[in-house]
């Protein structure tokens, strides 16, 4: 006769599982959401969004100005001035910004650390300059990608870029 083992339930795990079930029941979503899409698929989604931007599909009217929080500006000094990334608020969970100048791997990844700009009392959105170390002013930045830090998972498209 097989000896029955005495399992001690892990109450923390059990509680987490019950909470997950409760969340799923309260907020039913497609099956696919049960797991995060692969990074390549998430990247494909961002590819499409970048393409829309570069084809001028995103309304431009004043957006570059109003959304200012994002963008890049000319660096100063030096014979080959490096570009400067100007960031406003970023989505939650974003821990780094990947700067692309061509297909494939990003030219530079900017760790954001504890970056968390606040809206001032006057309503102005604070921005922070990040001096890039690789990308220079004469390089075309094609995509800014907000990523998670631990696995570089692409979370969202960065600030929109101006088109010709």
């Amino acid at each position, binding site marked *: 006769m097989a000896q029955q083992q005495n399992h001690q339930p892990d109450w923390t795990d059990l509680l987490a599982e019950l909470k997950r079930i409760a969340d799923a029941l309260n907020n039913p979503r497609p099956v696919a959401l049960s797991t995060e899409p692969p990074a390549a698929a998430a990247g494909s989604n961002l590819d499409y969004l970048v393409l829309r931007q570069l084809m001028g599909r995103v309304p431009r009217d004043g957006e570059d100005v109003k959304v200012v929080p994002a963008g890049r500006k000319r660096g100063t000094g030096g014979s080959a001035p490096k570009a400067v990334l100007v960031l406003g608020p970023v989505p939650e969970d974003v821990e780094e910004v990947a700067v692309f100048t061509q297909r494939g791997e990003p030219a530079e990844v900017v760790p954001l650390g504890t970056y968390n700009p606040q809206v001032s009392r006057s309503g102005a959105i604070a921005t922070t300059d990040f001096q890039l170390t690789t990308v220079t002013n004469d390089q*075309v930045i094609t995509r800014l990608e907000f990523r998670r830090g631990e696995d570089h998972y692409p979370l969202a498209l960065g600030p929109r870029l101006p088109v010709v």
Partner: protein
Amino acid sequence: MFRSLARRMTPPAQVFDIHPLQLSRWLDEAWTGGALVPDVGNSTTPAGTPFLGEPAIIGAIDLPLPSATGVPFPAPSGINPAAPDSFTGAPIGPPTPPLIDPGLVADHLVYAFLIESTGAFEVLAEVVRRLSVGETLNPISTAAHRWVRTTEELFFREPPLYSIQGVLSEVRPDQRVNRRNAYWRMFGLEPPHPVPARWLRPGIADGAWKQDVGDGVNTSFREKWTELLRQVWLGRENAKNGIGPNATDREYIASLCDALRDMMALRRRGGLLAREEFAYVSTLSWFHLTLEDNVPIVVDLSAQGPGPAERLQKLAARVGMTPAPRARELFELADLMSALLRAIELSVFSSGPSVELLYLDLGTNATLLTDMNKIIDLWQSATGDRVKDRPSGSAQPLRLPTPSGGNAAPPPNGVRAPAPTGSPAPMGLLAGQNGHG
């Protein structure tokens, strides 16, 4: 193309105030700017996948850049978006100088095809003709006169010498035939309306655009495109299936995307059709832009309306013509389909996980889902292809799709568009009487 330039102006209609010489030169600048368009695509995409079949095609035929700093750019447009009636003496600058911004990604050839299918080109050609030869239309304002002059100069006469627009010459003397030739080769489709009799040149037969194309016709484009939409809709229907059968086959959808990509790549070998695509997309974007707002020519001819299709309808009525009955869908479809085909050509949807973005709510792909849903609805409505019908038997065919169709013999003259099996005369529904007097 011209719509992108217009977006830099406030209001956008100010683009019609720019001198045609400057606009013509700007097209060359935009062509050169295409070289600044970097590779878009994720890291799984093969490097070097071009937009235009051959990345070097831009440099091969563009204007030479000055060899030294301080030497003026040859024939600059001198456009100043803030002052359209001025000349700066330099190429148009980036919106955020002195940084170099990404170049313009030109629309896909399908954009030109869909806008042309609305009948906009022929209707506005007749407007220009009537305003130029007689007094059958209302007197128009000076602003509208400027539009008429620019439109005639840019699109209804021989293009300027050595311009990127110069896809008209002794070897291909008719712009309507030339455009249809490109549509026919890339999609195996042609606009639903015939070339109006008034514009038929002596010695050029109806269907001349099919001559001498050799094996280079993508005759199965429509069949594969419609199948792609059908499969995506199937995926959408089954997106929330937790239990039971699910006929969605993501790898099959990826194969369809690859077949479409390879099919179009066959027509782009070595940069073929790159210049033509640029020129035709530019041309049709001018007419699209004219109809996008109540601009002076629209107002002067009492053709105001809520959208381009309504304005086109009224303008057509002024000159005794009828636009495509589904012009509204075609206008809306043009932008969406153009972006999606560009993405497909860039292998963005070449894997099973990636194509799930087209029909599954993955949390971050709301834009793509919406675009795809609209494309399906608009294509079905515009063409009559019953995309949402459920297939009988197996949801997928026995054989995987291939890019074949490029080597098949084109249908005989008179067949307007290849119809996928089971579809009721698709382009006939789209055709109507657009472009006819």
